[in-house]
């Protein structure tokens, strides 16, 4: 347990030592900030009710895009530099290493998401009698679960490569597949049949957008994200273990 925290702590601190995370955070918050402003202008003119989704909706998407940047280097860099040899000859279990790396990335993503909390707070002041609290809570819970799953997928893919670029491209590909292509496939299946239902369950964004963002906390959505997280960590651990045999 302690090993996980040691590794996670180091990764988290290391993120702040390089420019990339600052840039990502800046871009994400910039886009969200601009959209927030525009939405408020629009909302004020239209008189339409506004909720937390004006912030969380774009943020989920941006976090998905940011994941490859954040996670690509986690294990790929260690493999490229040879420092993986130090980690694998230390008394650290393989899964502790993977979970530690994941936790570091997860904490970074949560930090970025946490900064966005000022927007619902501002919104609460501007909208009378106040925005709907339910979706705020379930929305942020959804973000937390989404980040966990995204980070896990990123770490797992990073474990397979020695090149950050390859890990980056593959992670982006996988996430886009889960975000859009799956939805597309669901439509192909006709929308209602068993195929569509099964494939539709795999869609990473509907669990968030359709349910959690609307204030609905459904066990199947939570199970989906947790399973995806567990799967990512498991695959990552397997990848690290097979490294030992090469």
């Amino acid at each position, binding site marked *: 347990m*302690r090993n996980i925290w*040691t590794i996670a702590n180091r990764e988290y601190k290391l993120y702040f030592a*390089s420019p990339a995370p600052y840039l990502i955070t800046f871009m994400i918050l910039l886009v969200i900030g601009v959209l927030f402003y525009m939405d408020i202008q629009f909302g004020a003119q239209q008189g339409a009710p506004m909720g937390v989704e004006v912030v969380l909706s774009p943020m989920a998407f941006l976090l998905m895009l940011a994941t490859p940047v954040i996670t690509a280097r986690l294990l790929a860099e260690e493999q490229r530099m040879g*420092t993986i*040899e130090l*980690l*694998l*000859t*230390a008394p650290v279990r393989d899964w502790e290493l993977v979970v530690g790396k994941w936790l570091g990335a997860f904490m970074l993503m949560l930090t970025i998401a946490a900064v966005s909390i000022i927007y619902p707070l501002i919104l609460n002041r501007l909208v009378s009698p106040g925005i709907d609290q339910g979706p705020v809570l379930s929305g942020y819970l959804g973000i937390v679960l989404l980040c966990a799953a995204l980070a896990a997928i990123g770490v797992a893919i990073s474990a397979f490569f020695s090149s950050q670029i390859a890990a980056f491209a593959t992670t982006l590909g996988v996430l886009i597949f889960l975000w859009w292509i799956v939805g597309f496939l669901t439509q192909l299946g006709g929308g209602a049949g068993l195929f569509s239902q099964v494939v539709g369950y795999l869609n990473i964004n509907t669990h968030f957008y359709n349910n959690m963002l609307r204030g609905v906390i459904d066990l199947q959505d939570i199970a989906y994200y947790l399973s995806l997280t567990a799967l990512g960590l498991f695959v990552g651990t397997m990848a690290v273990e097979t490294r030992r*045999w090469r």
Partner: protein
Amino acid sequence: MIRVEELTKDYGARRAIDQLTFNADKGEILGFLGPNGAGKTTTMRILSGYMPPTSGKAEVAGFDVVEQSLEVRRRVGYMPETVPLYPEMTVFDYLKFMADLRHMPDAEDRVDDALEMVHMGDRAGGYIGNLSKGMRQRVGLAQALIHKPEVLILDEPTIGLDPVQIIEVRKLIREIGRDHTVLLSTHILSEAQQLCHRVLIINKGKIVVEDTPERLQARLAGAQRITVKVGGDADGLERVVGAVTGVAHISASIDGGLEYESAAGQDARPAVARAVVGAGYDLLELHPIGLSLEEIFLQLTRDEPTPPAPDDGEPVEDEPDVA
């Protein structure tokens, strides 16, 4: 401390080490000597718990490297050949990270101790990326020492260092070797000679010979070899020396002199000296030359049969070639 039995490792079709069997006792400094690609790094990686062998058994500090890998890793300090480090971390942070991973209770003190041992106490705040090669090597060594392991496995610890740094690192290894078991690999033969209690010569994944450096030299020295050097014109020297009884195998040596071998047990030096001076030459040098570890190494890794140890009672069959 280290017990290896019939250790074999295949990388696909290539057999990197083949049925290696050897031991190292507590407090011993064991040297792995061999050309590049001989299997030294592979063996060290297996012993440090990095990878499992294809077959065979290896035990470090009483724990099996496959079944009880975590226990082995707790007791081993390993410095890989490439000395991997994190350039974006400071020396102190890096060593503290390593100490934390090994659950050292007083991590910061341990870091200070380790830095003292490698004489880098004043560079603790610097970024690893800014260090010279020699300093990086010392940081790597500090990392291997930080948890005061029972066994140290050092893969080419002095590679890439300048002569001053090499002397320092060797001194350090000698100091450490007093309380720890050290397994180090090198292809610098004089290093093996200076540092190691015992030397294992490996070639193509197999152990070619295993002995102390001195006995190894004695085994392969065989017949006595004497070098003769005269001043000025050396014409006809060969004939003169060759005429002395007890002299066999005359050859020219690289630096312009002459080398001959005398049969075992016979010392032809007085007769040779008299013959040379009597024939009118200016005798400058007349002394025996031992077989250097270099020549032993070359001979052994050239796939020639190894002469048996002297107490076997058999006569030495192979005579060393003059380089």
